[in-house]
């Protein structure tokens, strides 16, 4: 049978390795990278992968961390939580990695986080669903990306405070992410004493959204807030708005800014009056300049991304890069890769300046992304990976 020879080989190898002395293994710092390079959200994962690879190469070329080279073990989970759990187990127990980055999908992350927490491996969390971090249950999971609440919160703030709207239509989709985001959106609006005038969950493959938009208009909505990552649905929503000639602002999920949306629109004008939650680090200021650190990374990454204009959302790349740099910072501060020491080092980080954001973690705070680094962008201003700031 297939199993036996592999396991025998595994035992032999393990024996050989342990006999040859721990010196060989201890030389590298092993980082596991759980990425969904194929399947849903693969575009995000591929971009993040670029950032991760660049950071690893840079650090290794400069001599590694504390004199030890980084060894990156990439595992393609293909968007399947069962595979993600299998690979997490493999990375934790078979490959015995020191750190894990990922997974990209929140659905996979929810499944792997407990496994890695049990194994005590420090993890860089890059999924946005709020339940992925918990200082008590998962003490060694530190979030690098913003939380879903921050996305929804900054969009709500823009809609309610800046645009001064009060009659909100909340649109979600029937996927896992869509239903939970719509729920969180309602809770946050509730806290601001706003009750949505229209609230619906739509199948992401529904072919026409003009009925829902008509209903939203009939309910008197003066701002439409979609919380879905499905570009097909968002494209149809904008089409419906444009076809009806309804001049309502749309403020919502960052997927509204995705490059694929442009192709799905009936007319390019339909993308106007659309805003999405974004980041200070990938926003052009009034003079058209990016923050200096982002620009530096853009210049470094450009040859690796094709040499011409960058056509992926750059914050994914920056986030992947930051994950590795944070690991470097943690190991240097702790002086070793001992998980407990690393945890202590990261827990007491009042301010770490990354490229994607300036992070703060504390003993009771595992979400490092600060509210102040959130921004709202104009959706149709994609250029070279970043966006313009929404007018205030």
């Amino acid at each position, binding site marked *: 049978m297939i199993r036996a020879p592999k396991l025998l080989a595994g035992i032999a190898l393990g024996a050989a390795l342990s006999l040859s002395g721990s010196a060989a293994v201890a030389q590298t710092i092993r980082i596991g990278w759980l990425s969904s390079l194929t399947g849903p959200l693969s575009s995000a994962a591929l971009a993040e992968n670029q950032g991760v690879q660049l950071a690893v190469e840079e650090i290794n070329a400069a001599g590694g961390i504390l004199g030890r080279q980084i060894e990156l073990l990439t595992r393609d989970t293909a968007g399947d939580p069962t595979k993600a759990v299998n690979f997490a187990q493999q990375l934790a127990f078979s490959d015995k990695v020191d750190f894990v980055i990922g997974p990209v999908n929140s659905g996979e992350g929810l499944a792997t986080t407990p496994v890695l927490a049990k194994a005590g491996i420090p993890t860089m969390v890059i999924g946005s669903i709020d339940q992925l971090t918990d200082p008590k249950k998962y003490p060694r999971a530190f979030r690098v990306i913003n939380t879903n609440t921050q996305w929804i919160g900054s969009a709500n703030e823009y809609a309610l405070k800046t645009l001064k709207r009060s009659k909100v239509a909340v649109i979600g989709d029937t996927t896992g992410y869509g239903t939970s985001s719509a729920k969180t959106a309602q809770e946050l609006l509730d806290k601001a004493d706003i009750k949505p005038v229209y609230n619906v969950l739509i199948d992401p493959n529904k*072919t026409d959204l003009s*009925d829902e938009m008509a209903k939203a208009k009939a309910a008197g909505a003066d701002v439409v807030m979609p919380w879905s990552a499905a570009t*097909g649905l968002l494209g149809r929503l904008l089409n419906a708005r444009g076809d009806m000639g309804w001049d309502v602002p749309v403020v919502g999920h960052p997927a509204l800014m995705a490059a694929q949306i442009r192709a799905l629109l009936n007319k390019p004008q339909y993308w106007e009056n659309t805003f999405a939650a974004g980041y200070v680090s990938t926003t052009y200021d009034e003079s058209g300049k990016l923050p200096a650190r982002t620009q530096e990374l853009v210049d470094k990454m450009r040859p690796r991304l094709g040499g011409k204009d960058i056509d992926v959302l750059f914050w994914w790349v920056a986030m992947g890069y930051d994950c590795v740099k944070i690991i470097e910072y943690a190991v240097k501060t702790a002086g070793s890769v001992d998980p407990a020491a690393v945890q202590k080092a990261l827990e007491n980080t009042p301010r770490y300046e990354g490229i994607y954001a300036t992070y703060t973690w504390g003993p009771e705070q595992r979400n490092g992304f600060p509210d102040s680094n959130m921004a709202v962008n104009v959706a149709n201003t994609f250029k070279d990976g970043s966006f313009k700031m929404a007018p205030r």
Partner: protein
Amino acid sequence: MWSVLVSGLATGALFAATALVYNVMFSTSKVLSITTGHIAMLGGVFGAWFITALGLPWIVGLVGALVVGAAFGWLTDVLAIRRVLARSDEHLWLLSTLALATMVQQAVGLWWGTEPKPFPRLIPQDFGAGITDQKFWLPIVVAVAMALGLELFYRRTMYGKLFLAMSEDAFAARARGVPTDRIRAVSYVIAGALGALAGFAAGQLTFAYFALGLTLTLNGFIALAVGGLGSNVGALIGGAALGLLNAFSSYFVGGEFQQTISVGLLMLVLLLKPEGLLGSKNTRPV
């Protein structure tokens, strides 16, 4: 309310066209192929590719999509049906068509990408046209035309009569000298072209999306089961019923119970009248 009605009829027309394709394949081979929905998906995806990526005029894109559909229909026959029908085991064709359907869906997903991509505008028309937009009436017109065309085909042409002969009794047909293998291949090619046409016509409604195949197989089947296996008019009725039910239920109740309601319709019809509204009773004397 009108827009709900029209969009329901349009998606229903796509389901009806898929049911017609099922009928054509079933008539000569007594096989219900799981690849039926995927033929329409290929029509939409390749139509979009020919017109947008290769920049060809839409007539050429349409012909190209038809060719791809016909080729896939022929491939279904050769790979999944021919060898399998020769054996007495009747379940194997379900497995082989399921395998082929999975393969084509994954292959297209890897090549085309997993995001829905736009389907180009075929006839210049302003986008504010509301319910008279071509994305609604193109599928409806195509489905009705297909049904009429098939009826004429069966009644007036020699090949159509051969199809009918094979569906009544394949052995008798063979005894009379009908080359059943070749006729079956022809029917699959025709079915492939029709499916691609349906997918192409509905492309603006569904966008060019690789995962369309399986849901269309299921929904087309529900339309077929409701209308009755073997009846073209029944396919139209079944498709319209399913499309309208979907549209009105999502308008009044929301999108969360879509599948439950569609399948509820299927189960109801199967329990009350298993052969469908216009189908014939499927009894086989032994």
